[in-house]
C-alpha cells in the first residue's frame, strides 16, 4: 500500500511543480502550488511525520500560499504575452543537464549514516508532536530562538516595506 501512495504523491507533486513553473496565469500557478503543498504533506505522512504534515498544511498552504494569492489579487497583474524569459531554453537545458549529472552522482554514492536515537517505534509511542518537541527544545533550542527572531525581523521588515507612504516619507 505504502509504495502506491508514495508513487501517487510523488508523481502528482512533480507534476504540480512543473505546472507551477510552466503555467501562464499566475493564479493558476498558485493553485498548482497548492496542489504541490498538499501532496508534499502527504509524503510527510508516509514518512511518519504527522506534526510536519499538519504544520505544512496550516502554515504553508494555509498562510503562505494565501498570502501569495492575496498579493496576486491585489496587484491585479495582467497576463503577459511572454511569461518566460527570452532564451529560456539554454538555461533549461543546462540546468537539466547539470542536475541530471548530480542526481546520477548522488545515486551512485553510498548513502546512509549514523543511526539516531529515535526509531519509528519509539516515536509512535510518544507521538509525533511530542517527539519533535522533545528534540527541538533540548538540542535545538538556540536555533528555535533564532528562527523566532528571524520571523520578528521579517514581520517588521514586511510592515515597514509595505506600509502606505506618508507625507513624511517623501524626500523634500
Amino acid at each position, binding site marked *: 500500500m505504502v509504495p502506491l501512495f508514495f508513487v501517487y504523491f510523488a508523481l502528482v507533486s512533480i507534476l504540480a511543480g512543473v505546472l507551477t513553473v510552466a503555467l501562464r496565469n499566475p493564479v493558476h500557478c498558485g493553485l498548482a502550488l497548492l496542489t504541490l503543498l498538499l501532496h508534499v504533506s502527504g509524503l510527510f505522512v508516509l514518512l511518519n511525520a504527522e506534526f510536519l504534515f499538519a504544520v505544512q498544511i496550516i502554515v504553508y498552504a494555509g498562510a503562505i500560499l494565501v498570502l501569495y494569492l492575496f498579493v496576486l489579487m491585489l496587484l491585479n497583474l495582467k497576463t503577459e504575452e511572454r511569461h518566460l524569459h527570452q532564451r529560456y531554453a539554454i538555461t533549461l537545458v543546462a540546468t537539466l543537464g547539470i542536475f541530471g549529472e*548530480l542526481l546520477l552522482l548522488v545515486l551512485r554514492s553510498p548513502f546512509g549514516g549514523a543511526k539516531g536515537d529515535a526509531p519509528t517505534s519509539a516515536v509512535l509511542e510518544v507521538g509525533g508532536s511530542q517527539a519533535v518537541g522533545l528534540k527541538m527544545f533540548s538540542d535545538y533550542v538556540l536555533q528555535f530562538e533564532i528562527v523566532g527572531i528571524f520571523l520578528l525581523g521579517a514581520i517588521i521588515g514586511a510592515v515597514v516595506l509595505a506600509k502606505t507612504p506618508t507625507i513624511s516619507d517623501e524626500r523634500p
Partner: protein
Amino acid sequence: MAFELLVLAVPALPLLAVILNGLFGNRYSHRVAYWLGCGSVGVSFLFALGIFAEMLATGATREVVAYPWIFGGTLTVNLGFLIDPLTCVMLLVVTGVGFLIHVYSIGYMHGEEGFTRFFTYMNLFMVSMLLLVMGNNYLVLFIGWEGVGLCSYLLIGYYYDRVSAAKAATKAFVVNRIGDAGFLLGIFLVFVNFQTLDYTTVFARAGQLSTGMATTIALCLLVGAIGKSAQIPLYTWLPDAMEGPTPVSALIHAATMVTAGVYMVVRNHVLYDMAPLALSTVAWIGGGTALFAASIGLVQNDIKRVLAYSTVSQLGYMFLACGVGAYAAAIFHLMTHAFFKALLFLSAGSVIHALAGEQDIRHMGGLRAKLPLTHLSFLTGTLAIAGIFPLAGFWSKDEIMAHAFVHGHYALYGLAALGAFLTAFYMFRLTYLTFYGESRVEPHAAGHLHESPWIMMGPLIALATLSVIGGFPGVPPEAGWFHRFLNPVVGTTGPAEAHEGSTGLLPTLMGIATAIALSGWALAHYLYKIRPAAAHELADRTPRMYRTLLNKYYVDEFYDAGVVEPLKRLGAVWDWFDQRVIDGVVRAVGRLTETSAAFSTLFETYIIYGSINIIGYSNHLAARVLRRLQTGMVHHYAAIIVAGLFLLVHLLWVWWTGSSSVGLAAR
C-alpha cells in the same frame, strides 16, 4: 762652466728680449724696447768674442748640451751647441753685423708705430740664426732654419697694410718652404742611414755611405740651401723681399739669413766631398746664378732691387766656391760680403731716409754734395763689392776665382769672371746714378734732404772700416790666418790645396781680377758719368734684350703660369672635394643622426609609451568585457549563482571525495 754659460747665453739673451718686448712691449717706451733689443744682441756679441778668445786659446772643439730633448727609441736629440772654428766665425759675423744693424734701426725706425714689434721680430731672427749656426745636430739646425724663414716672413711683411708687402712675405715663405721640403728629405735620409742626427757622429761615420746615398743626401740638403740662399731656381723671393724696411734687407738678405745655405753646405762638406756629382751641381748652380742675377741687375731702377740681385749674384759666388772645394774661401767671402752688403743696404737706407722714401734711382742724382758721409760709405761698399784692391771684396772674390782656375774649372772661372765684370759695372752704375750727375730729385723729396743722424751713421762708419780691413785675415790667399783658423773644420778632408809650382799663377790671376773690376768701373764711368745719354741709346738699340733684362727674364711670370696657377686650380679641386665629398659625409652623418633621432622618438612614442599605455588599455578592455556581467537583471545573477554553486558542488564531490563521474557506467 763659465764657457757653457757663455755659450747658452748667446742665444738666450736675445730670446729674453723677444719675450719681454713681445709680451710687455706695449707697456713701456720705445727707448726701453730698443735698449733691450740692441743691448741683448750687443752682449751676445761680447760673449761671442769671449767664446772666440777661448777657441783661440784652446783650439778645441766643444759641445755644450743645453737640454736633453728627445730620447727614447731610436732617436736621441739634444738641444745642444757645437763650438768649433766655423761656429766662431759665424757667431762673430751674425752677432757683430746684427748688432750694428740693430743700432742703425733705432734711427731708421724712429717714430714708427710698430717700433717694438720690429725689434721683437729682429731679436727673434737673431735667436733663430744663432740656433742655426750653433746647433750640434740637424734638428736644431732645422729649428733655426725654419725660425729664420718665419722671421723673414714677419719682417718682410712688416708694413702689413701694404698688399705688395704681404704678397712678398708670403712668396718668400712659400718659396723657402719648397726648399725646406727637400731639406727635410735630406735630414730623413741622414737619420735612416746613421740612426742619429748629431754632426760629430754623422761626419765620423760618413765614410760608410755609398756614393749614391751620399749624393742623394747632399742633393736633398742642397735643395734647402737653394731655397734659403736664393739660388736658381728658387731665387724669385729675394728681390720682392725688398718690400720690408731697409734694415731688414740688410740683416736678413745681405748679412745673415741667406748665408745659412752656404753655412749648411760648408758644415756638411764631409758629405759633399764624397759626392762629386753634388759638388759640381753646387758649383754650376752657383756660377749660373752669379751670372744670371748680375745680368738682371744691370738695368734695374730701384736702388734696393739692384742690391738684391747683387746679393743673389754674390751668393752664387759662395756656392761656386763650395762647389770647387774652397770651403774656407766660401766662408771668407760670406764674411766680407756681410760687411760690404750690409754697408751698401744701410747706406741706401740712409739715402731713402733722406729722400723721404724715394727708391727709384731715376729720381735721384747729385746727392754727393748733400749727403757726403752717405756717399763715402756707399762708395766704399761699391769698391769692396767690385773687387778693387786692397778692399775686402777683392781678397775673397779673387780667392774663389783663383781656386776655380787652379783646380781646372775653367768654365766656372769664366762665369765668375764675367760675373765680376758685370758686378763692377752695375754697382758703379748705381753709384753714379744715385750720387753724381744732375739732380733728378723730385721737389717734395728735395726739401727733406739731410744727412742721417749719428745713430745711423755710426754703424755705417763701422761697416765701412770693416769693408776696408776685413779682407786682411784672409791674406795671403789660402794661407792666411783665417784659413789656418778654419783648417780643423774644412781643411783636411777637402780636396788638397795644391799650390806648389803655381806661385807665379796667383799674382797673375790677381792682376786679371783687378783688370776685370777696373774695366767694369770704366764702362760704367763712361756710360753714366761722361756720356749719360749713351746708356739710353744702348737701351733703345737693343729694345728686346733691354726689356727682357728689365723684366727679369720673365721668370716670375713663367712660375706664375706654370706652377702657381695649376696649384691654385688643384686647390680649387680640393676645395670642391672638401665641400662636396667631405662635408657631404659630415652632413650625411648629421642627417643620419637626425634620422636615428626621429626613429628613436618614434620608438619611444609608440613602443615605450605604447607598452605603458597598454596596461591602461587592457584594463579598459577587460572592464568593457566584464562590465557586461552587470546587467542589472536579477535572474541573470541567479543563474550565475546557480552555476557557481553547481561548479562548487561538482568540484567538491569529484575531487574531494575522490569519486569520478567518469566511472558512472562501471557502477
